[in-house]
């Protein structure tokens, strides 16, 4: 009981400290009276253009309090924007799993395949989404209007695929020889060995890969939306930056962080269930 109380208490202390620090460094609006009697508004403080926490709340609460509202194309509730982003992330992520899992199995099962493609994967893996995105659009120029969307999917998929590929490959290689011996003694066919022995034995590794992949897919969305102009939370952030509305940027950052956190939590739960099953 005491422990759970602390678990709730300390995060709030941390949050309060950060808010206080933020308040301290943020800029404030002041009224300055000129010599001729007219007044003007100026910003003062350590970081003049950084809005205070309270400012941020006041200016962005319409997005939060009506999270699903759609006033205009670029003026919608924050969760509505988030939803658009989640949909495209979900699709890209699904493609990543669909390609990444078999690829991981091939890498793990065949030494030749691993020799051929492992170096290539290691080179492609650290490439930033900002670099993939233009290529993605170029690849799908033939698709006309859909090029942007397909490019976005391509970017999300190719950036988030690697943890799935690598973890699956490692997992397949880690399948104990004992299990394979059982398959041999039972004279299981190749498909039976794959689906009854290899896949279940690799599942915990695969899920670790899936979790990390989802994290990356969500990370990539902002870059993708900035470049393509697809409507979503990353696009909203970018527009508001161009409009000089810094409070919205902060709202977006907090939202993106929270969503990423929840996604990771959800996947961890699933992962633990899978692992608990053995």
């Amino acid at each position, binding site marked *: 009981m005491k422990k759970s109380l602390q678990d709730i208490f300390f995060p709030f202390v941390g949050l309060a400290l950060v808010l206080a620090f933020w308040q301290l460094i943020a800029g404030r609006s002041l009224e300055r009276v000129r010599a001729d009697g007219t007044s003007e508004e100026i910003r003062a403080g350590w970081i003049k253009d950084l809005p205070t926490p309270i400012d941020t709340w006041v200016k962005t609460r319409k997005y939060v309090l009506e999270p699903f509202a759609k006033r205009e194309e670029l003026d919608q509730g924050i969760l509505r924007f988030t939803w658009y982003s989640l949909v495209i992330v979900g699709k890209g992520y699904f493609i990543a799993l669909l390609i990444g899992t078999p690829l991981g199995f091939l890498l793990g099962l065949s030494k030749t395949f691993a020799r051929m493609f*492992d170096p290539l994967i290691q080179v492609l893996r650290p490439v930033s989404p900002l670099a993939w995105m233009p290529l993605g659009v170029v690849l799908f120029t033939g698709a006309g209007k859909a090029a942007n969307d397909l490019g976005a999917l391509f970017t999300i998929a190719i950036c988030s695929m690697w943890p799935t590929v690598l973890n699956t490959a490692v997992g397949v290689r880690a399948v104990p020889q*004992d299990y394979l011996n059982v398959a041999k003694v039972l004279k299981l066919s190749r498909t039976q060995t794959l689906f009854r022995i290899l896949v279940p034995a690799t599942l915990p590794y695969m899920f670790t890969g899936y979790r990390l992949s989802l994290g990356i897919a969500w990370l990539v969305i902002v870059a993708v939306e900035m470049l393509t102009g697809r409507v979503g939370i990353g696009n909203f952030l970018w527009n508001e930056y161009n409009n000089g509305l810094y409070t919205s940027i902060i709202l977006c950052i907090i939202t993106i962080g929270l969503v990423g956190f929840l996604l990771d939590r959800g996947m961890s739960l699933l992962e633990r269930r899978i692992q608990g099953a053995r």
Partner: protein
Amino acid sequence: MSFLELRDISKGYGPASARMPVLREINLSIEKGEFVAIVGYSGAGKTTLINLMAGLIRPDSGSITLNDLEVVSPGPDRGIVFQNYSLLPWLTVYENIALAVDPLFPNWSAARRRQHTEQHIHMVNLTPARDKRPAELSGGMRQRVSVARALAMDPQILLLDEPLGALDALTRANLQDEIGRICQSSGKTVVLITNDPDEAILLADRILPLSAGPGATLGPSIPVDIERPRDRRALSQDPRFQAIRTQIVDWLLGAGGRPTVTVSKRLTLPDLEPEDLTLPRTLFGLRREAKRRGAERRETVTL
């Protein structure tokens, strides 16, 4: 020709340049229905020998025949109880056994396969635990699942690789009796690998000591002419028991083996831990070692 026949078998590991011999000049004939025990030092090559019989590995030279047919690959006619049981951790007791039954008897009706599986679970007294996973079972229970799985394959010969090696003395004694009873009633040909001479005498018709490696070989065949059923308490008082025991131990300590007194060994029951990509990795990744978690047991045996 005998039922199972090993002739001039030798086997080593490692590259040709630095080959480490494990077994040499192994000759062994086993008749149908016989219960043969092989007693040997830890690390002598007992698992290697049983894997050869199972067809999981091939000898460097020599031939192995079962029913006059050359053994070239593993198959369900040789039921094997692996040293670490090799149960699949994501399957329940029932599913582990069904995994063996279902692909082996495709012509049976589902009901018949199910009944066959249940019957073997019952035979090892695990019916109350039929829906448990290996992680929820004690070592002795896992061992029994492993025996049930091997028998459910309805093999011609049963290969037991130190089936009780990882168990405590009390459980071990109980299971010895149980294995004796099951093997007796099934009338199957059995090869039992063990490091415990007493266990061998209690269970086997014939005992072969295996010398210490490298280059281990089998000693003389020692028949156990003690009538069954054998009672472990009466047995230890039996002069025949003591004579056989002396014979085995003398051979192992003398001519065959090195003068070792205690032997210590470690067993790892397989269990996987997932990989975390946040851990440091080597250049070109992928070469990370599989980590193994799970029960480890160390045990010391005096021969």
